[in-house]
């Protein structure tokens, strides 16, 4: 039996910081989006299958549970996208200063929450929401 490989210290020994939490959130939202594509595939397949299959998806999405999932999914998409843009800024070599990275983290969080609420407000009030 070989000895287990040594592991570096992990999350639990560090004091939480905003940028760290945003990194965790980026991973979590990415994983959520990963499994959420099942709903996307189901929706597309149902639309191509016919009215009965499609109304089953509509029933799920229109339910309270479905709307909660969709609301969370909307936030996850926007948060992951804004977080990804933040990563692209870092990839270009910008935004590493103490002020900048804190500001970017706050902007990402505020932007994702704000845009999610805005999108749903437009969807529910203006367009009328899912049937």
């Amino acid at each position, binding site marked *: 039996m070989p000895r*287990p*490989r040594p*592991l570096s210290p992990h999350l639990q020994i560090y004091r939480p910081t905003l940028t760290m939490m945003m990194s965790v959130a980026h*991973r979590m939202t*990415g*994983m959520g*989006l*990963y499994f959420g*594509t*099942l709903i*996307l*595939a189901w929706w*597309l*397949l149902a*639309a*191509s299958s*016919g*009215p009965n299959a*499609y*109304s089953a998806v509509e029933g799920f999405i229109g339910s309270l549970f479905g709307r909660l999932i969709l609301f969370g999914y909307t936030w996850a*998409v926007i948060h992951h*996208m804004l977080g*990804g*843009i933040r*990563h*692209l800024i870092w*990839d270009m070599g910008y935004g590493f200063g103490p002020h900048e990275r804190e500001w970017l983290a706050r902007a990402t969080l505020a932007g994702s929450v704000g845009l999610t609420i805005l*999108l749903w407000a*437009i*969807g529910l009030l203006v*367009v*009328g*929401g*899912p*049937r």
Partner: protein
Amino acid sequence: MKPEGFRIRTPLARVRGLGAARSGTEHFWRQRLTAVANVPLVIAFVVIVASLLGRNHAAVVQILGSPFVAIVLLLFIASITTHMRIGMQVVIEDYVHDDIPKLVCLIANNFFAVAVALTSAYAILKLSFGV
């Protein structure tokens, strides 16, 4: 004797030599490439979904199957499923350390991503060609 750490090969040559993972920076590059592609494609997807709110199945089929929308959806599916497959692979490699579970997870990840991609693409094409 050569000084400690002295290498004739440049860092670029080591990268071109594909490094320890035998794939060089291709993984990193493809993740960024699809990230950049995802931004306009996800925004387009949100607009498409918003335009479908409150419409019945027949109207949804007509919109989803129209050439421009279908092509955007196909690009969207190709980009996000590539992005999520690479992303989940990193998560698995970070957290699953034992060989057999890691192998199983990596295989399952590929199967899942390809299944979601092809299911969605099939549905979009079926809507487009009206069969």
